[in-house]
């Protein structure tokens, strides 16, 4: 058992409770705030990297004809853009938010397993270096789409694919460790009185997201492992000549892939559920139904994967089942949207920058969700599938959904993190600039998709020219807006008006009510009291 002397001995060595100095602080840190910061910077770097590749895509698609890049390189750009954005930008950004926020939201001294927390992060720079380096190798980067369907990624792929496979393994290890840490923290580290049904929704959504992660990342690892053995050791999982099936790959991939898209949106729901009540100055409407809706979405997300495969020739019973299950997800998601709107209803609203991003989220995520519903209708997905209509759908849920929530979270919590207010005027410019340009970027893609433009093509026939040009212009403008965002971030970290502890008039939660801005390096060394 634990004794007082041992306790003193253990703490004696570590009496300095502030951060270490220099580079090694960041390499060896076990502090949840430091690790959160590292994750957020990695995510931002990857956003710029993935965004640069999106710019190359939009540049090539600016006009019909092959102007800038070869088709093979174009495919590499599409693939790497998707991979880097999903695994490098959105997921690490949410893990960064989890690190920063979960301990201070539930009154814990740190994450439950601080050393492992460090490792979860420090695997990622290696994984992404390996992935990115393939661009410069003979054979080039992965060029088979972020969905890497066999046999294009097995028999027909260059040697560099093996580096991609191992990079995915590493990301999987990192995500699983990160998720375990979140679960252990939430289940084991809550301050006395912080019952499950009192937790902020961000914590709830992350708890459920963490379950999704540990359930599906290993499946992805299994899929790439089978790819590896098919490529090098003579197995035939994805080869009909040996009794396997290329479509089996798709089933395994999407068993991972569909929950994956909810991994990228559930924490976003948590962020929005924190911001709307604050600026409506009214408690969140339907807290418990929000929790149940989140759980329902997560459970349903395991049962709908083959809606990405309506054209692979499944038996008709399978198609019907997956269609019904897919459109059913609209119901709990609708509950979330309706609860947010009702939270605003009869509130006393103000529109600071975080609120603007949150409102933008609700509108544009709903647009993306509704186009998702259209995709879910199997007989019509025959026409939508693999067109720009799908590209428009998922950018509405990912860019104006997930990414918008991350930016909203930044503006909402950065005064707490740094103690500095961001520049409100610049924040508002950032919002309007982004929101106008992102719609110019992605809305026309619905039209070209419906008119018949396939995705993943470097060149297109002339009837799509106008809308592609509009879309590219929107893309460049949106890209520049994010460079502007970088400026705002640095400016805020460097200085700014001192933030109050409460930060926002309507803010609630332990992090606002019981901690100063910025919070000390080790917060809640004494457990707070939760009413």
């Amino acid at each position, binding site marked *: 058992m634990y004794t007082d002397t041992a306790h003193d001995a253990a703490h004696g060595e570590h009496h300095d409770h502030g951060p270490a100095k220099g580079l090694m602080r960041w390499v060896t840190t076990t502090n949840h705030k430091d690790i959160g910061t590292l994750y957020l910077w990695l995510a931002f770097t990857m956003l710029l990297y993935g965004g640069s590749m999106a710019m190359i895509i939009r540049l090539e698609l600016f006009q019909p004809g092959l102007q800038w890049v070869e088709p093979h390189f174009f495919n590499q750009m599409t693939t790497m853009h998707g991979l880097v954005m999903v695994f490098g930008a959105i997921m690490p950004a949410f893990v960064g938010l989890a690190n920063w926020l979960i301990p201070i939201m539930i009154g814990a001294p740190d994450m439950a397993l601080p050393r492992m927390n460090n490792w979860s992060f420090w695997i990622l720079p290696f994984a992404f270096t390996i992935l990115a380096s393939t661009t410069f190798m003979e054979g080039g980067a992965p060029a088979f789409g972020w969905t890497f369907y066999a046999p294009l990624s097995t028999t027909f792929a260059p040697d560099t694919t093996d580096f991609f496979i191992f990079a995915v393994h590493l990301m999987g290890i990192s995500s699983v460790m990160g998720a375990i840490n979140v679960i252990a923290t939430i289940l084991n580290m809550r301050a006395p009185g912080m019952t499950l049904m009192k937790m902020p929704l961000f914590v709830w959504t992350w708890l459920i997201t963490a379950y999704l992660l540990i359930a599906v990342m290993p499946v992805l690892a299994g899929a790439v492992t089978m790819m590896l053995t098919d490529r090098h050791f003579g197995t035939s999982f994805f*080869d009909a000549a040996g009794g396997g099936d290329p479509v089996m790959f798709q089933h395994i991939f999407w068993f991972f892939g569909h929950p994956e898209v909810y991994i990228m949106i559930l924490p976003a729901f948590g962020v929005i559920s924190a911001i709307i009540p604050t600026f409506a100055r009214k408690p969140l409407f339907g807290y418990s139904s929000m929790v149940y809706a989140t759980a329902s979405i997560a459970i349903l997300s395991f049962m709908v994967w083959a809606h990405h495969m309506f054209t692979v020739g499944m038996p008709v019973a399978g198609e019907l089942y997956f269609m019904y299950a897919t459109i059913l997800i609209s119901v709990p998601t609708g509950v979330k949207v309706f609860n947010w709107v009702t939270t605003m209803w009869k509130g006393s609203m103000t529109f600071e920058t975080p609120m603007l991003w949150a409102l933008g989220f609700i509108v544009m995520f709903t647009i993306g969700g509704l186009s998702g519903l259209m995709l879910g209708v199997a007989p019509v997905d*025959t026409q939508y599938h693999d067109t720009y209509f799908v590209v428009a759908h998922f950018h509405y849920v990912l860019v104006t959904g997930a990414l918008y929530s991350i930016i909203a979270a930044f503006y909402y919590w950065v005064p707490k993190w740094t103690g500095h207010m961001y520049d409100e005027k610049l924040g508002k410019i950032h919002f309007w600039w982004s929101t106008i340009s992102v719609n110019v970027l992605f809305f026309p893609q619905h039209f070209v998709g419906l008119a018949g433009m396939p995705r993943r093509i470097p060149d297109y026939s*002339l009837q799509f*020219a106008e809308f592609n040009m509009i879309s590219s212009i929107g893309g460049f403008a949106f890209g520049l807006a994010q460079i502007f965002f970088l400026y705002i971030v640095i400016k805020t970290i460097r200085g700014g008006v001192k933030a109050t502890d409460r930060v926002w008039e309507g803010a609630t939660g332990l992090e606002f009510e019981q901690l100063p801005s910025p919070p000390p390096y080790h917060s809640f060394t004494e457990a707070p009291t939760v009413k």
Partner: protein
Amino acid sequence: MIFNKLSRRFLVIVTGLASMVSMSAAHAEYALNMTKGVTPISQQQYGLHMLVFWICVVIGALVFGAMAWSIIYHRKSKGAVAANFHESTTVEIIWTVVPLLILIGIAIPATATLLDLEDAKTDADITLQVTGIQWKWKYTYVDEDVSFISSLAQSSRDVVNDPTGNENYLLEVDEPVVLPINKKVRFLFHSSDVIHAWWVPALGVKQDSIPGFINDSWATIEKPGIYRGQCAELCGKDHGFMPIVVNAVTEAEYQQWLVSKKEEAAAAAASAEQEWSMKDLLARGETVYQANCSACHGPTGAGIPGAFPAMTGSPIVLGDAAGHIDIILNGKAGTAMAAFKGQLNDVDIAAVVTYERNALGNSVGDLVQPSAIKNAR
């Protein structure tokens, strides 16, 4: 009906707005919406699409309307004081059940259409086998002994960097597939390499062609015309360059076309019996090479390092002719190098072998006759 009219008006407005932003109106042939198409299925799909679209518009209008209302009237600057209600089981149940009913309303017609769409086998008049090949399509008329390969037309290829002036830029093939109208055509899709997807929007058909399995689908074309489509599954480097052209004609024209196709095949078989001159082989070889091989091995034979070997100076090309012929006939298992024996006839293979050995920077000097290919098969 009324929906369609409304939708057209809505789209016209959006078009107007969009073209104001647009810079070049040179090729303005706006298509903003899904085609209605020319088959029963494509028309059902269009109807369902519009139905769900309008449901989404209404839901969006309600949700965004409520948001806008509170944004305008419940703002602090207008002196709004926050109410404190934050729970109501009744409304939660309402907004769970009402969407559920809407979904059931969508699911019923969707189920009917899906069952119809999947019903390819019953009463098919014609069976057309479609094989995806990196990056072209092979069509086989199962009951007719007619088979040919259709790839991006050279004219379309040539303007890749200068699209101006070519009306069907990237959507023109060297040999369109010809089908009679008002017959139920059953398609059988499969692939000889990676997964492709055969998609012609006006036919309402999009189906993956998968190596090792055959998928089916069907269409009854109700109007003669030329219908264009593209490969819709990422299949490697030239995925964007494998268009589809369907020429729908009357039954009589179709029969006539079949006859001419068979005559062509007979003529080709006869030419394989002749001795060919170096000059003719090289000329033919260049055409075959550029159409079938250059996508991977490059128009000048340079290949793509790490992915596709160069032909210039390749040990197999410079080695004895038997090995060279073998890799083209049988391909190389486990690589992208496909077996071409099913795709090219003896003359074509003889020509391309001769061409590779004596062009693209190589000069082996020998000449391979079609008869040699026939023996090697």
